[in-house]
């Protein structure tokens, strides 16, 4: 008889649990760090799933392109990585950009969000450059009015810096001041040529105003390929990669 009662109670409870939310007693949380440590196992099935991919990838990506004297990482308002990539793009523009109007490019402007990994001290491999610049973005040259150029500099100031080359300025109260372009004081009535990525030129990173550019020319060169060339040229010249901050962006005192 008791058993029957239990079964009825059980059915009732089941019915209740279907329509009413369960009561939450407590939560416990934990974050695991994934690292090579004692007790941290490697799953064999996963390892062998990856292996054939890794082997053909390593064959392709382990080529050493250059040797760096220092680790190259991001920084604000100026960072070694931003300086390095922007310099590589400026160098590419000096060598590869054939302007229709015979006026060379003035400066380079990129975004920190587009630099995806640091470069190590020592050997820099093709794979390192892919990780730094995994995107297929291409370099473009925009011809823009001085008023828009000022917007770019204020955008950079607002973000506490961005990768630039060919310019020098200071940040004061989130605004760009004392701007030099090609060592000349910035003139808002002039038209300038800025080298950037097609991603930013298309309005990426909330830069919709860049779409107002007067003219746009493609360099038919990926940002990543510009970095490859820069590294290979240094190596060919027998040089290591040496990057030093040159105060191209600073905070105004």
């Amino acid at each position: 008889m008791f058993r029957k009662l239990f079964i009825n109670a059980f059915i009732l409870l089941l019915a209740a649990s279907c329509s009413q939310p369960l009561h939450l007693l407590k939560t416990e949380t934990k974050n695991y760090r994934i690292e090579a440590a004692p007790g941290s196992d490697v799953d064999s099935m996963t390892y062998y799933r990856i292996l054939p991919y890794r082997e053909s990838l390593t064959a392709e990506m382990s080529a050493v392109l250059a040797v760096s004297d220092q680790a190259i990482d991001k920084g604000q308002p100026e960072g070694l990585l931003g300086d390095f990539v922007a310099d590589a793009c400026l160098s590419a523009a000096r060598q590869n950009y054939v302007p229709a109007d015979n006026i060379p490019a003035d400066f380079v402007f990129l975004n920190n969000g587009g630099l995806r990994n640091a470069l190590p001290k020592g050997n820099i491999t093709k794979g390192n450059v892919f990780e730094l610049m995994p995107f297929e973005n291409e370099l473009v040259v925009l011809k823009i009015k001085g008023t828009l150029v000022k917007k770019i500099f204020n955008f950079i100031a607002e973000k506490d810096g961005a990768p630039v080359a060919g310019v020098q300025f200071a940040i004061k109260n989130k605004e760009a001041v004392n701007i030099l372009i090609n060592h000349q004081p910035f003139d808002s009535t002039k038209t300038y040529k800025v080298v950037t990525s097609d991603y930013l030129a298309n309005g990426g990173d909330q830069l919709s105003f860049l779409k107002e550019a007067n003219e746009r020319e493609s360099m038919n060169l990926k940002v990543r390929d510009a970095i490859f060339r820069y590294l290979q040229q240094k190596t060919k010249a027998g040089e290591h990669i040496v990057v030093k901050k040159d105060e191209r962006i600073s905070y105004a005192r």
Partner: protein
Amino acid sequence: MNGSAMPGRRNFLKTLAGSAALLGMGASPLELLAKQDIEKLTILHTNDVHSRIDPFPDNDPKYAGLGGTARRAALIKKIRAEEKNVLLLDSGDSFQGTPYFNMYGGELEFKLMSDMGYDASTIGNHDFDNGMDGLVKQLPNANFSLLCSNYDFSDTPLNNHTQPYKLFEKGGIRIGVFGIGIELQGLVDKKLYGNTVYNDPLSKARYYSHFLKEEKKCDLVICLSHLGYQYKEQKISDEIFAGESEHIDLILGGHTHTFLDEPVHFKNKNGKEILVAQVGWAGIKLGRIDYYFEKNSKKKDAVGTSLKISRKSSAI
């Protein structure tokens, strides 16, 4: 690790027999069941793995030796061996960041996630990096669901390949999971996302979380978000989302690569607790949240029900 976990329904008969023996001693069987019938749900989560199949190399300036899918897979297997009810989720941007993506287009990323038994993922902005066709091409390698409730893919190749939400049932616990994506304009090149229509995340989240909690009677509502944890400017983020929500219990976030030491407690619109979690990026960490539910706690359920009515009216 699971010493405090109590037996679920599968041990119910044993409990029943024990209760019958105790009945003579005055303990009510209902009370006894309520005390003993605890079900534990383990949520495991990652975000922004960005094609980090292998650990960072030893010469990496920041993360040398960290991460690696084979180690994450081993850890997940170990946890699955210990726990009955596991849900494994990702908050987007599985793609882009190492040559694995440049060479294989995301094939290995999705195959490994399938191997590890991911239940669902939302779509991050970088998952569009090979365009809509590039993502569609990899879908046969994914045996988990892609969830996003605020991207309308009707006029794109992704049409009918994603779902706004998914229901799971683990050990009698009903879990509703839905996805929320970040605004693509100004972030992703238009040529990559094509005719995807971005809808307001808050209104979609309000609808789906209410639907999952009230209509589908979920015990737990999880939002897989790729909005980002917080911003200096007034831009919609998980932080703002948490305060504006009413029916979400947990936001598993991404995009900003934020390493939260542990999930952050927020109060939702009704002053009720909501958790926001994010575990950085690159598969350096695996997040875990264990929920202990009391089954058949009739008295407390009644309280929950009355609260629900007042919440409903305040929502209108």
